[in-house]
């Protein structure tokens, strides 16, 4: 008996279809500025939808879009961290807080680009662990990349992945704020993940525990 194409089948067909339509001349592609307006949510809904519709049907524009989106996403995450920081430290004085927030953001941008230096400790960031990705309840496929914000005075971090029953399925220690686990380390199934930051005074900070589905 015939039935509909599944979501997965549609995705495979769609990926092949748009790849076959790649246009080296890129005559009909929106400008980089239009893609930037899209990721910044500037302009009318109609124009943003049209730009996005094209970007999702053009492999080259999709790559451009993702590059700009990555930068904008980092800026927003950093701005959010700065806002939380200011709320907590207001009694210390606005000038000091503004300087700390600026330094925090600078390291947030430059830090990941300098990760080739082992053992480096990144300073700056709110006194909690804001987890970034995967988003809560995300359904991910291998490789699995976990990302979180830096914590001030953190000497290192421990990523922990638990089964729904609370058993530790995988753990990884790192001085970085991102860890990638392979399919071999995590099988398919439902999990919860969290991060602990170990500070230089021996204390720890904890992130929320996020649900995650691996497939």
């Amino acid at each position, binding site marked *: 008996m*015939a039935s*509909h*194409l599944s*979501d997965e089948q*549609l*995705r*495979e*067909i*769609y*990926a*092949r*279809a*748009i*790849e*076959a*339509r790649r246009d*080296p*001349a*890129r005559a009909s*592609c929106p400008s*980089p*500025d239009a*893609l*930037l307006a899209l990721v910044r*949510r500037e302009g009318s*809904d*109609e124009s943003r*939808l*049209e730009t*996005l*519709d094209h970007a*999702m049907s053009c*492999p*080259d524009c999709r*790559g*451009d879009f*993702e*590059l*700009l*989106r*990555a*930068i*904008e*996403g*980092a*800026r927003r995450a*950093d*701005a959010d961290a700065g806002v939380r920081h200011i709320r907590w430290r207001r009694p210390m004085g606005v000038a000091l807080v503004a300087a700390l927030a*600026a330094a925090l*953001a*600078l390291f*947030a*941008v430059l830090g990941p*680009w300098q990760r080739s230096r082992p053992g480096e400790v990144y300073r700056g960031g709110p006194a909690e662990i804001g987890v*970034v990705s995967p988003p809560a309840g*995300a*359904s991910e496929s291998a490789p699995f*990349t976990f*990302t979180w914000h830096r914590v001030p005075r953190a000497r290192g971090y421990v990523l922990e992945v638990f089964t729904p029953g609370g058993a530790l399925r995988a753990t990884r220690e790192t001085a970085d704020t*991102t860890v990638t686990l392979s399919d071999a380390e995590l099988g398919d199934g439902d999990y919860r993940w969290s991060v602990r930051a170990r500070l230089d005074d021996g204390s720890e900070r904890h992130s929320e525990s996020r649900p995650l589905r691996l497939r």
Partner: protein
Amino acid sequence: MVRSVGARHGLSDADVDDVVQDVRIRLWRSCTTTEQIERLGTSYVYRAATTAALDMLRRRRAHGAAVTDCVDAHSEQLAARSSASDATDAHDLERQVLAALETLPLARRTVVRMYLSGYEREEIAELLGWTEAKTRNLLYRGLDDLRARLTTMGITWPPT
């Protein structure tokens, strides 16, 4: 952050490296010491990163070199999956899926394209500034419309 987000979405390392290198050059041209760089405002750094990215994209378009490594690898994987004897049928199916998509209203079509490109509902909602409920509604209606049009075109699974 930029690198991890880029990796999650299959962005080429070369693209990110180009931008990173350009930002470093811009920062060192503006400031001669690490201390001066640390005193720069965050908005300056992000402006530099955005400008570097835009410049790189414009240069790449001007030189017509837009193909990224990750896309090439993906294409090879996809090509390897298809046998030569299936190629014609597969191309027909791809064309029909694209044709069916083109008949959807813009908002539904865009959401469905994003979903078929691997984005989660939450990401789509965040990017478009929509509620999760609105996004879910448009996505499900769009997928229903797409399947209905494919059925009308005689496309079912497995092929009959």
